[in-house]
């Protein structure tokens, strides 16, 4: 019985068992209290109307609250009450409309079950033949396949229309080579290390052991265009450790000054500022994804997703005792990008 049943079924069609369960039909209609008792129906009606009236009240309250709690210039605290009461008024005003409408539909509107049959997607043979005919007629009347020159030039014209967009969007890229912009920061030989945000230069003698200074290049504050871009690349964290704690590579011995080291503050993972310096463990922690860098060993990665150590800024001291950069960073700061050489 089942075998012969299977053979009857079209391979692409839904499973249709010949012994399928018979459609039991609807359950007996569920009568709601409002259907049975006119008194309860009246009550539900009043309840719904009350919700809509409440909505009106809340809407008016929102408008009133805006005037009762005005935003006073120079007093941030005034924004708080203003926002809260206006927001609550509008929110409850809208919510009461929604709740009222749903309650109306559920409690009072027509409550019978009904079935909506699903229609087949395939059209009748007649419709399908006619559709093919329409295509053929259109082709004959327009000459789409016959007048190839017209057709091809039109396609060509349409393909050409986005060309201005390429020119427009290309101009959004940084001027010149983007690699150049990413490879270099404002640091160069002789630029003083200054305090963020006021730009006062830092003497080596002012950096006591255990200190952490947030540093910007001295010429940063003169930058007018692209200040934040430049700051985002040039930000440096300056720390002083006991010189005996530093395990410096031979070729980098002269990059620090008496235990003072300067590292890029921009994480090599995705560019968050790494500045959570623990002065006893000498670990730097990035708060975004918990990458950890060991300051004693040229900020090598000791935990987390960062791929490279933080770039070190070679520093020296000038004749007046101020800290200066020996050069720019010797590698691009921040996260990886396609053209990055290192």
């Amino acid at each position, binding site marked *: 019985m089942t075998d012969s049943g299977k053979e009857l079924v079209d391979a692409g069609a839904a499973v249709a068992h010949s012994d399928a369960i018979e459609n039991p039909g609807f359950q007996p209609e569920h009568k709601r209290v409002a259907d049975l008792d006119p008194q309860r129906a009246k009550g539900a009606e009043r309840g719904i109307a009350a919700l809509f009236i409440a909505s009106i009240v809340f809407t008016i309250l929102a408008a009133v609250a805006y005037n009762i709690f005005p935003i006073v210039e120079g007093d941030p605290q005034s924004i*708080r009450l203003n926002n*809260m009461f206006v927001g609550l008024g509008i929110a409850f005003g809208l919510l009461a409309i929604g709740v009222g409408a749903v309650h109306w539909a559920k409690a009072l509107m027509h409550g019978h079950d009904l079935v909506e049959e699903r229609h087949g997607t395939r059209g009748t043979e007649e419709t399908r033949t006619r559709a093919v005919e329409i295509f053929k007629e259109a082709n004959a009347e327009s000459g789409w396949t016959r007048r190839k020159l017209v057709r091809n030039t039109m396609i060509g014209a349409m393909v050409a229309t986005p060309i201005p967009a390429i020119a427009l969007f290309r101009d959004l890229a940084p001027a010149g080579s983007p690699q150049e912009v990413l490879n270099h920061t404002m640091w160069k030989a002789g630029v003083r290390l200054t*305090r*963020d945000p006021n730009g006062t230069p830092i003497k080596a003698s002012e950096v006591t052991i255990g200190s*952490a200074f947030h540093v910007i290049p001295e010429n940063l504050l003169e930058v007018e265009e692209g200040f934040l871009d430049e700051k985002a690349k040039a930000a440096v964290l300056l*720390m002083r450790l006991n010189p005996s704690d530093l395990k410096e590579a031979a070729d980098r011995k002269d990059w620090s000054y008496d235990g003072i080291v300067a590292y890029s503050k921009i994480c090599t993972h995705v560019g968050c500022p790494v500045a959570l310096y623990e*002065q006893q463990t000498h670990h730097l922690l990035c*708060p975004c994804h918990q990458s950890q860098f060991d300051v004693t060993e040229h900020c090598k990665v000791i935990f987390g997703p960062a791929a490279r150590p933080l770039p070190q800024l070679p520093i020296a001291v000038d004749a007046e005792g101020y800290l200066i950069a020996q050069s720019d960073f010797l590698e691009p700061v921040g996260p990886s990008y396609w053209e990055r050489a290192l």
Partner: protein
Amino acid sequence: MRKISHRTGRRHPLASVALLVVGLFTTGGAYALFTGTATAESSAVSEAQLDEGKKIFQANCASCHGLNAEGTNAGPSLIGVGALSVEFQVGTGRMPMAGSGPQAEVKPVQFVQEDIDAMAAWVASLAPGPALPEEEMLSGGDASNGAELFRVNCAMCHNVAGAGGALTEGKFAPHLKNIDPVHIYAAMVTGPQNMPVFSDMNLTPEEKRDIIAYLKYMDGNASVGGLDLGALGPVSEGLFIWIFGLGGLIAITVWLTAKSN
């Protein structure tokens, strides 16, 4: 009669010397008393206080820091840490430590202020170190400048609203709400535990006062944005929206599809 006059008339040979001594003691004592109270406010270090401080130290701190604060394997040397470190560590209850752990945590203060002052005076007498700030350096700063300095120097660990945050391996930067201004000042100057030092050459005393003013402003004013949920960012806000936001949506969905009774 003669006997009486004889008695009153006669002076002991040393009487004038005694009078002189009494007079000198009175004027000198009075002078010392008046000027003494004046100097007591700035640097009241009496021998008795130092002795007291040393005794309290040796009874409570020496097992880790050594009998003469020279340090042991269990605790660092305290020579040269100054009175301010003692005020911070003991005055916030961090010291004496209840047990070894990632970092010393705040707990109820274990000593009365008098004893803390005595220990501070004794530790300060061992070697020069940071002293307690003048009272006027702790209040009246510019909160808006302080806010900028806080964002640059402090917010990465302590959170922009001063709510604190996690560090590595169980360490954390504590919250900065309702902290005694002396202890905020002391933390910046001394760099307790893993906090970097922000000496007066990095942040001037005026700048420190501004930062204190900002933190006090934050204490005294509720968050402008409404309920800040501890100002912990995505953690508490995410938890709130997952539980109450999604919970509310599920409740509404259930209500929408349920049949009316």
